[in-house]
């Protein structure tokens, strides 16, 4: 009979490995991000198809300024780095430093959103002007929603990283790691979006 009923065959360390929770919560998050990425992939596919087969009517305006989005790209890339710093500080049990880096990241996120709003208000086209305009707003808006959510979560975890009584510490890294992964993902999407929408 191969139906075993004893743990003696299995080393204790093996069992402990399996019981390591953070492991599979992050894994679950990765799968979720893949799913989320597929939503963006659908939008990108639609955008590229439109671009290939639905040329805009003569006289439509779809000029995009590059200055703000380039600034935004830099903001987001820097914010990925600062978030990374925050994580490192937490590992070294320096909660106050970690919290500061998180706040820097959050303010970068907020700046990004302000810049994007500024860009929206200064664009020469509105949501329903033409196909390009609609897709532009849908894509950047959906991404902006992700940034907003991420910024809120960063603010929450930065509160929880405070020195006394915070829920997050080097012993409980999961919330910070999860948000960090999410934030890098949102950055990555922005880079693709920037290339496809603004440069291509």
């Amino acid at each position, binding site marked *: 009979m191969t139906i075993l009923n004893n743990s003696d065959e299995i080393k204790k360390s093996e069992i402990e490995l399996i019981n390591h929770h953070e492991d599979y919560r992050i894994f679950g998050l990765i799968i979720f991000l893949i799913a989320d990425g597929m939503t963006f992939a659908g939008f990108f596919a639609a955008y590229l198809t439109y671009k290939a*087969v639905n040329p*805009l009517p003569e006289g439509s305006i779809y000029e995009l300024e590059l200055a703000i989005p380039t600034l935004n790209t830099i903001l987001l890339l820097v914010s990925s780095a600062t978030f990374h710093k925050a994580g490192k500080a937490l590992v070294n049990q320096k909660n106050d430093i970690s919290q500061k880096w998180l706040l820097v990241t959050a303010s970068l996120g907020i700046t990004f959103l302000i810049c994007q709003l500024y860009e929206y208000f200064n664009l020469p086209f509105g949501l329903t002007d033409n196909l390009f305009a609609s897709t532009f707003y849908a894509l950047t808006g959906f991404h902006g929603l992700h940034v907003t959510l991420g910024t809120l979560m960063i603010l929450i975890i930065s509160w929880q990283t405070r020195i006394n009584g915070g829920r997050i510490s080097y012993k409980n890294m999961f919330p910070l790691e999860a948000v960090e992964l999410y934030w890098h993902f949102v950055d990555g999407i922005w880079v693709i979006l920037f290339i496809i929408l603004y440069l291509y």
Partner: protein
Amino acid sequence: MLNKSYYLIPIISIIIGISFWIGFSVNLLPEEASINAPIYDELFKILFIIGLILFIGMTALVIYSLFKFRKKEGEFGDGIALEGNLSLEIIWTVIPSIIVLFVGIYSYNIYDRMGGMNELNHNHANMNANDEKIWAGISQGNNSNSGLGETAIEVSAMQFAFLFNYPQGEFISGELHVPVDQEISIKMESKDVIHAFWIPEFRIKQDIIPGQPTILNFTPTRIGKYPIICAELCGPYHGGMRASIIVEDKSDYEKWFNQNNKTNL
């Protein structure tokens, strides 16, 4: 298992025989009234026979095993602990692959004979907004020049009717009149939602897509009146969205055309 396979030969032949017999004697299709129809029916017959062989074979296997290997009253114990057999696995991977490949190539050939592989002006690459993009349904013959053949008729579909515009005569008709044995080319446009143009007796169908004119070519071969059916859900009266195509011999068609013709008034 394999060494006893000669038992299978008569059984398989019987199944194949029955399938061929059914395939050739049962007609599931409506009248053939265009050049397309006999080509289509040829494909149908082959697919029908292959399908029958596979279906009868699988059903026979299942029912036979149910009876043959049924646990008898009061019998205990398990069947043989057989977990796999590589040569069998290979056989039933290869045979379906061959069938599928054969069917694929054959239907490509059919499709080509129907004219489906003719590229009309369908290159998106160097197109600008003012060019009309025309998409093709199937088309027979060689009309790669413009897509519009000898008898060009414009079809416009709307909720819930078809209208047929004869540009040479500058008139609009509610019925589609066409001469027999002559290639007809229609250009279809929709005014509101998606419709579809289907003539079962011709075995052709093409969606009529708003913002995207489509072309369909066909050659009727039999005089008569056939239904044109809208086959894409287009609203509450979708079921009632029908028209007729009237295939006439050339003189009748010309008579009808001249009666309606507005150019020589």
